[in-house]
């Protein structure tokens, strides 16, 4: 599904979805016609950085910086692939 995903790809939220943080749920959610997906923390943190301007490599670096950790490349890539497959993301 996500052939062509490289570290230079620029993922963006698919235009039919809206991502926002919901304080009442303590979570990011994806909103779409008659539906809502509640995201766990890592999914929310990844998706909110998928702006269509940052590359996958930059998103990963930024996440590693924000959470003072390293070695997130595989985890981020796998989630982005999953989100592309679910059509939450597209490659800009």
């Amino acid at each position: 599904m996500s052939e062509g995903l490289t570290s230079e790809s620029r993922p963006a939220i698919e235009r039919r979805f809206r991502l926002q943080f919901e304080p009442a749920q303590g979570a990011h959610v994806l909103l779409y016609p008659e539906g809502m997906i509640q995201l766990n923390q890592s999914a929310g943190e990844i998706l909110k950085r998928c702006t269509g301007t940052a590359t996958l490599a930059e998103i990963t670096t930024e996440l590693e910086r924000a959470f003072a950790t390293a070695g997130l490349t595989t985890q981020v890539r796998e989630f982005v692939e999953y989100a592309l497959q679910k059509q939450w993301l597209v490659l800009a």
Partner: protein
Amino acid sequence: MAGARLSARVKPGPPLWLLCELTYRCPLHCVFCYNPTDFAMQSSELATEDWLKVLREARALGAVQLGLSGGEPLVRDDLEVLVAEAHRLGYYINLITSGVGLNETRIRALKEAGLDHIQLSFQDSTKQMNDFLSSTRTFELKSRVAALIKQFDFPMVLNVVLHRLNIDHVEAILEMADRMGAEYVELANTQFYGWAWQNREHLMPTRSQVERAEAVTQRYRDRQTRPMRIFFVVPDYFERRPKACMNGLGSIFLTVTADGTALPCHAARMLPGLSFPNVRTASMSEVWYESEGFNHYRGDAWMKEPCRSCPERGRDFGGCRCQAYLLTGDAANADPVCDLSPYHDRVLAAVARAEARAEARPEAPGTEERPLVFRTPEASRALSGAER
């Protein structure tokens, strides 16, 4: 109650879904409408300020999916004001409309106000059946509205309520939706409440009709080329377990009706012995957390057997309270769609009458023929006993 661990009162989460039935005025007269049959007897509609208060307070509680419905919400000339405020508050806003009244001026204003998507109803795939079932000449108008929705780049959900008079046209309906560029299609089999309950004998499909429609839908999915999500809502009279109606009353869903009555489901007004709060006098927090109408059917302490000791009660919550009331006379009974309900034979009998009707056998005893009742203010007053 051996084996039954019942929770007296469950602290509910936030009301994530808010449905505002802005008005019961409607240019259509659909025979399957779920609106209450006594809508013409209700007191005056909420004012703009009341709705703005509802939107603000519900959003503060955590509501995020917003449906603007009716009746026909476009009848309200403050719709754009409400959409703009809802957008500012952060709702995801769905306009649920017949399309009547949606011209280029209004759709542009709604786009600018921040409306997120539009659910457009059709009654069938042909002008003749659409116009008959809604008792209006609206098919061509709806087709023009579908084009406007695409022109203004809204995601379009095309909704068609299915029943015995149109369920055989599913393929043509899907082709129509595809031609119109819908992103989502809801083939929603009639749920028998409100006007649909009045017309149940006319609208109930046969089992073979339902199976054929499902098969046609699946074949369509298998060969479709354009992405279009198709939802086929199975008519629950043909099931053996009830739907998890509203995910349990008072768990995520909150309706405010045109006159300000707050309900845990859009049909719940019929439930006897319960008082429902009105947003003119109660805050949304009082409505959701404190009112009897929202608390009564929370948790499972209200349940009777067979639900009370049923291992599946946490999955379907006993089904639909309104259906239990309509079919058994007691809203705390199991939804008789469930084959564990002692009243399940009443569901089977309704389905059997549909089969008999299709085979043109004489009607079962006690089911005299009566004409289709169209949803009009006159019929509403008559059904409410106000006219003779």
